[in-house]
């Protein structure tokens, strides 16, 4: 398709008449720690998206794009402005079970995606830890999975997309070849350049609905890194859990899970396990307790002592079940463990939670993460969850991935600890910058402008600024996060930061 060829869109969508009271909603980050009021619109097609851009221009408002709202902080919020929620653009447009190529609208979730393709023996190449993210959100943040070190990020599996930028003609189809700058900028561009209105993805062939999973204990961050390095060459997925409460000699102890696809013929029940029903997560815990109420059970443990108990139990469970045992687990159970308990985040109410994930080059990872753990523990604010992953570099302009490791911390937010927590995040930021690391906007709620401008490569910021000037010169697209980090003239800010 030619670079500037427009894709026909039906002109039937009703034009939003204006900003009405009925559009006002509170929009929150997934972690419930930040939120604000916006006028929310939910178009059903690209024409509807364009209509909202027009409305915003007429009313002098900015537009923040939003998918499933799973970004932990303020990345999909636009307080006081318009939020364009794309979850109603949720059609699967085409699916080819012979090649594994699928065309979807941006509001299609990972859940919808895997349910559409698994029966034919395919699985999404890259998934997040929750299946409720949308394709548009995944592309905009260029998400990674537990296989990042092996297959790259979400963007690496996007074949092409249709894109509607506020000021760049109509909807156009973008590929790596016809517009490499926009391709690599829009993916990872956190909704700042335009709106994905269709994505074509290459999915991954699988021969069973199950993975072969194995777990290993590790006793320090260094050991965890060694374990990853040793297994990475032949593991399809690797993920580590770190007990962030344990200090002293147990600092950084954890468990590594490794998973591999089954080869053709290896699973005698392959066809059966590929059924959607075989992937279902049970509705009740231990067959008794309704999962929907599970967060209430978690609540009493949502404090330093409770997490210490749970973490110790989790770590020492290995004594009872030797970790060397290999077991089979469905793709969903392995990939979306967090969805197993619906609304588990409610255990963090009323203050919510923030996630702090930083990405550190391989050689520096051990010392950086140990230092972060010590700082957090020393401040009396130990993370309640620590998740460890391995990454590799990718060609997307604002990507978070490095040739190294990431450690994601979940922190509980309360009215009392909030200021202290934000201050702690600043200290952790310093460690990341000192070690040449990066941050991830999907997880961010605390980053300061100077840090954001310091960690992004200057060249990438200059390129991104040029794209912003081309696609959205009037800064129609903004979010709370973009304003927090780059002010309301993102292009100018990135240009001057990129000129340093």
């Amino acid at each position, binding site marked *: 398709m030619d670079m500037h060829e427009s894709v026909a869109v039906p002109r039937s969508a009703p034009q939003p008449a204006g900003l009405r*009271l009925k559009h006002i909603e*509170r929009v929150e980050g997934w972690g419930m720690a930040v939120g604000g009021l916006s006028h929310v619109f939910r178009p059903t097609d690209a024409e509807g998206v364009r209509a909202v851009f027009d409305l915003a221009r007429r009313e002098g408002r900015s537009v923040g794009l939003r998918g499933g709202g799973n970004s932990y902080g303020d990345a999909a919020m636009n307080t006081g402005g318009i939020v364009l929620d794309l979850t109603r653009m949720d059609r699967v447009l085409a699916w080819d079970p012979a090649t594994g190529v699928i065309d979807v609208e941006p509001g299609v979730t990972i859940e919808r995606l895997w349910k559409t393709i698994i029966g034919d023996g395919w699985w999404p190449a890259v998934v997040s830890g929750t299946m409720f993210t949308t394709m548009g959100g995944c592309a905009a943040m260029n998400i990674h999975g537990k296989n990042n070190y092996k297959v790259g990020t979400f963007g690496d599996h996007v074949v092409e997309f249709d894109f509607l930028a506020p000021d760049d003609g109509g909807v156009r189809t973008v590929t790596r070849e016809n517009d490499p700058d926009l391709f690599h900028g829009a993916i990872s561009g956190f909704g700042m350049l335009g709106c994905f209105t269709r994505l074509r993805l290459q999915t991954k062939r699988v021969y069973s609905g199950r993975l072969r999973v194995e777990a290993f204990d590790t006793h320090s961050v260094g050991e965890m890194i060694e374990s990853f390095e040793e297994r990475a060459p032949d593991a399809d997925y690797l993920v580590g859990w770190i007990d962030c409460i344990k200090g002293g000699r147990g600092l950084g102890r954890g468990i590594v899970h490794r998973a591999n696809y089954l080869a053709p013929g290896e699973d005698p029940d392959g066809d059966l396990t590929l059924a959607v029903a075989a992937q279902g997560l049970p509705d009740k815990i231990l067959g008794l307790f309704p999962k929907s109420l599970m967060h209430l059970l978690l609540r009493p443990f949502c404090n330093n002592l409770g997490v210490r108990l749970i973490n110790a139990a989790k770590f020492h469970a290995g004594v009872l079940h030797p970790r060397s045992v290999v077991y089979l687990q469905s793709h969903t159970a392995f990939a979306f463990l967090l969805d197993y308990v619906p609304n588990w985040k409610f255990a963090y109410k009323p203050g919510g939670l923030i996630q702090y994930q930083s990405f550190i080059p391989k050689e520096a990872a051990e010392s950086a993460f140990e230092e972060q753990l010590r700082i957090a523990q020393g401040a009396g604010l130990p993370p309640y969850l620590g998740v460890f992953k391995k990454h590799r570099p990718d060609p997307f302009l604002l990507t978070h991935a490095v040739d190294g490791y990431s450690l994601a911390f979940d922190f509980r937010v309360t009215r009392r600890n909030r200021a202290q927590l934000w201050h702690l995040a600043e200290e952790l930021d310093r460690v990341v910058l000192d070690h040449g690391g990066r941050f991830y906007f999907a997880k961010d709620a605390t980053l300061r402008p100077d840090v954001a401008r310091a960690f992004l490569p200057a060249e990438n910021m200059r390129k991104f600024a040029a794209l912003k000037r081309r696609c959205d010169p009037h800064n129609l697209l903004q979010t709370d996060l973009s304003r927090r980090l780059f002010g309301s003239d993102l292009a100018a800010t990135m240009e001057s930061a990129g000129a340093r």
Partner: protein
Amino acid sequence: MLRDNCALVVGASSGIGAAVAERLAREGFRVALVARREEELRKVADRINQRAGEDRALVFAHDVTCFDEVPALFERIVEALGGLSVVVYAAGVMPPVALDEYHFAKDRQMIEVNLLGMIAWLNEAADLFRRVQAGVIVGVGSVAGDRGRAGQPGYNTSKGAQAIFLESLRNRLAPANVRVITIKPGPVDTPMVRHLGRLPMMITADEAARQIVRAIGRSWGTVYVPRRWGLIMWVIIHIPSFIFRRLGMK
């Protein structure tokens, strides 16, 4: 986008509603006053604005039985106030009904004003508050809704149904951080009950309003005004029907 400390009082031209509006205004709220009699509303608004030294009260004449007008008027009011955080529904009627009188028009009026009007207004408020995940909704019911008495079948029904509706709203909206309060006053000295003469344990409208405004600040659920009615009604609710019938309570 929406200011805090903005209240809407339906039934604000007289009695409990007027007193609640005045007290809210004294606490710094901007208030929208709704009822049919515009001149009465103006008097209340003038008192509020004079005291505050600024235009804190706005007047909107409306008959709550014109249900279709509610959505647009609600939107206009929120716009005029610049926000909305509290809604109080205090409009009500209780025409005299003789013990041997069966008068559909009166019953219908009570259901329309006390119940359907409330549903029309509170649905609007509920939808807004659900979306913004904040707000307080107050419905003024009555102790008279706790039992079906011989004297006031229509009124008792309207008040009983009000309480059920408010309980449902409360259960719907609790996850959205919205509080829904059912106020159940005993006798209050207002024009509505003047024809009944002096009633037992009667309080002034201002005293009722003081307690209601306090509840707005902190309560969930049902609040009897004054509180002792909670105990009294607990006993009355538990009197078996065959005894209750003989007590001759009207």
